[in-house]
């Protein structure tokens, strides 16, 4: 079993500029890309990020379940976010995984590419944009405006809920 933990981003930068003033509240998000969309999950809920992993595919489950991963002896369910969002499957390329904790279970979210850890100003939180398609809107808690881009905040609990009616 190869240990393919890889933290591809630099550790979150300490905010030293305001050390003498009242600290500005920041929230930090681990970001990742799916197609043209940029998503983020709160850094504290991210256990780790991984490169492409060997997976055991899961028959009889919703296709959203990409498979099962062996994470240092723990069996983690991998959710394909593209399928969850109704996007077409990635054509070629090597997807990456964001391992998030939801309660006391861990899930691996399969994404196109991992981005940086980003600071956001919590007051800049907006409700989900109108332009987002149906499935995507259900999975987004809101958005933050970054320079020239929109960061969509993923609802991890919703994203890791597999549609019950399909599973037997």
């Amino acid at each position: 079993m190869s240990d393919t933990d890889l933290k591809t981003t630099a550790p979150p930068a300490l905010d030293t500029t305001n050390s003498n003033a009242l600290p500005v509240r920041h929230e930090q998000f681990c970001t990742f890309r799916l197609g043209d969309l940029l998503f983020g999950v709160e850094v504290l809920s991210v256990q780790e990020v991984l490169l492409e992993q060997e997976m055991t595919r899961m028959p009889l489950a919703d296709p959203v379940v990409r498979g099962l991963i062996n994470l240092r002896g723990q069996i983690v369910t991998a959710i394909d976010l593209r399928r969850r969002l109704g996007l077409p499957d990635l054509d070629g390329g090597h997807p990456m995984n964001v391992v998030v904790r939801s309660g006391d279970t861990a899930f691996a979210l399969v994404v196109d590419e991992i981005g940086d850890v980003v600071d956001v100003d919590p007051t800049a939180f907006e409700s989900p944009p109108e332009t987002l398609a149906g499935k995507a809107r259900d999975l987004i808690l809101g958005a933050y405006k970054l320079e020239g881009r929109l960061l969509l905040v993923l609802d991890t609990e919703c994203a890791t809920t597999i549609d019950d009616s399909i599973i037997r």
Partner: protein
Amino acid sequence: MRTLMSELDEVLGEFLIESYENLDRLDQDLVALEDDPTDRQLLSGIFRTIHTIKGTCGFLGFSKLEALTHAGESMLSKLRDGELVLDAARTSALLAMVDAVRQMLAAIEATAGEGDGDYSELTTHIHALTDADGHVDVAVVEPAAVTPATAEAELAKTKKSKAKKAVDPTHAEPGAEITPEPAGVEPTPATPDVSAADKAPAASHGPGQGDSTIRVDVSLLDTLMNLVGELVLARNQIVQVTGAYGEPDLATAAQRLNLITTELQEGVMKTRMQPIGQVLGKFPRIVRDIAIGLGKQVRIDLEGKETELDKTINEAIKDPLTHLVRNSVDHGLELPEARIAKGKDPEGRVVIRAFHEGGQVNIEIADDGAGIDSERIKAKAIEKALITIAQAERMTEREALQLIFLAGFSTAETVSNISGRGVGMDVVKTNIESIGGTVDVQTALGVGTTFKIKIPLTLAIIPALLVTTDGDRYAIPQVSLLELLRLEGEQVRTSIEMIHGAPVYRLRGNLLPLCHLGHELWRSDPDGANPAPVTPWRGPSADQRVVNIVVLQADGRHFGLVVDDISDTQEIVVKPLDAQLKSISAFAGATIMGDGRVALILDVLGLAQKAHVIGEARDRALAKASGAKAEEVIALSESLLLVQVGDRRVAVPLSLVARLEEFPRSSVENAGGRSVVQYRGEIMPLVDVAYALGAGPCAEAATEDEPLHAVVYSAGGASMGLLVDKILDIVEEHVAAGEAQPGTGIRGSAVIAGRVTDIVDVVELLRTIDPAFFLSIDQAGAL
């Protein structure tokens, strides 16, 4: 100050733990004492237990508890000295005291105070019963042996909490280890501590255990189990890797590691094993209380109390068993008057048997009550729109009985507050299946009902066969595995037949339904990833040269699973699937193999049901096709005809019975000193089986008007009529070879439908009665 408080907390915690255990024992002892009120040892033991509780209560300042237990102690003192006699009223009062003490202990645990309950009425009641008259002259003999009640109390005081160093530091106080039961349920607490070598936890008649046990926190044992599980995985990996290397020293070390891990695993598993008596011990009290409440007389017998189960299984079956027992007493057993009218003993009997068999724990709950009427079941199910009339008509009796496990089903005429709320049986079945077990029911109308539960012995580490299909590996628990078959070349085409469009394989004369694993998992899933229409697997393709079949059993039936490749057997650690994936019935969990990859573990029963390779309809179709009698593919059970002969129950193998007939008494004639009857154009001799077996007279003597019942046995063109008092039922039972009594015609005895039954070897019996009968047939060369 803090040290003093934490010391007191510790003392309080220990007090609670011990008291709960003592109260459980009191429950059992009081019910046992009611059966035998003069048992000196029991009386002294009970007195000492209550005395201990009272003493500690006073020391800790719980005045209400002290007052209540003091009342109980006074009564017990008089009982022990023979000044009072224990009757039902006093027993109930003492049991009520036990319940009240539990309530107060729960309050203490939660709030460190005794709670607001007012127990003065109960206390007065106990005093009243103590002061009432009832002088009996019984010699008082002080038992010399120390009973476990005091031995444990002393053990705890001296051993203190050495072993409790392992208490999780995040726990606020030791008392928090005990999980309090939700209100409204009988307040039976979980026993958080396990004595490692204590094999006689509840027996108040056994010798004291002395210093050979130690208290260990259950969470520590859980941690050990997990670690051993991980060790097994690591061992698997090392064994796999060293196999590839071929380095002799490394191989030797790996081999040692292998052996040690196996032994360690077995040892740790043993620490978690508890005798099922821990759970069963509560039932005498439960049964007594329900019976009194309903005005019924019930006796409960427990067999196999020493059968050991993993602690988690013991916890999991507590509720289902309780419901089944309550059900038996409430709905199964009739009122004494009704029982007498049926010729039964007014005292109903519930038997719980526990034993190991076939790698599983079997628990049977049998009652000799009214049995389950499958017609009524069907009617109720139709009424509740659970099945259609058409379905009901097609159902066999066995299928009809399964209806009681459907959600929302209850045939109780009056929903008593004990059971019959309509949520019982399906919850029982779900609970048992969630730990990988099965539950089945057999019944004989008017005779009784038996529920049979089977549970796998261990949950966490199991031996499994690894197979490959469609490029993926799967693990099949060895407990379900029967054999492996490999078909090659021409065999592939010739030995797999198609019956009603489904492939079957003829295995030693029996037809084995087949299903293909890859097909079931990937190609028969209309709503899943591959939304193709469901086309069943039609057998191997034309160019297939090799077919691998894994013969499995589920729910007592066999089927064959076709896979691409079969690897070896390995011990695997069962890891649960994510909660949302658990509902997929075909899988029981997942495991990590030696190469680090994840493999899914098949749930054999779930897979078989999904593939429709088991089920009554399938059996009938197969049976019709093969022209054989519709019997289960496992020919382990026998069809037996149950009859009443005098005062004995007798079973005759159905295969030997030609016909069941009735003759008016007037038709019996005498020929050559024998009773005979004219039957189908010949003279058929009659045999008085009761006389032949030496049975006593039947409880219900038949009147002159009633016809005689005869079981007709034919051989070689000649017939004999065996006279019986009553034809009872036809049952299917697995009958092990019992002790044959030579010269009597009895092949052995068994407990069938809750009653001891003699199994008769008809041929042998007839030989002893009328050797000439067989002589003539022998001569005719027919036998």
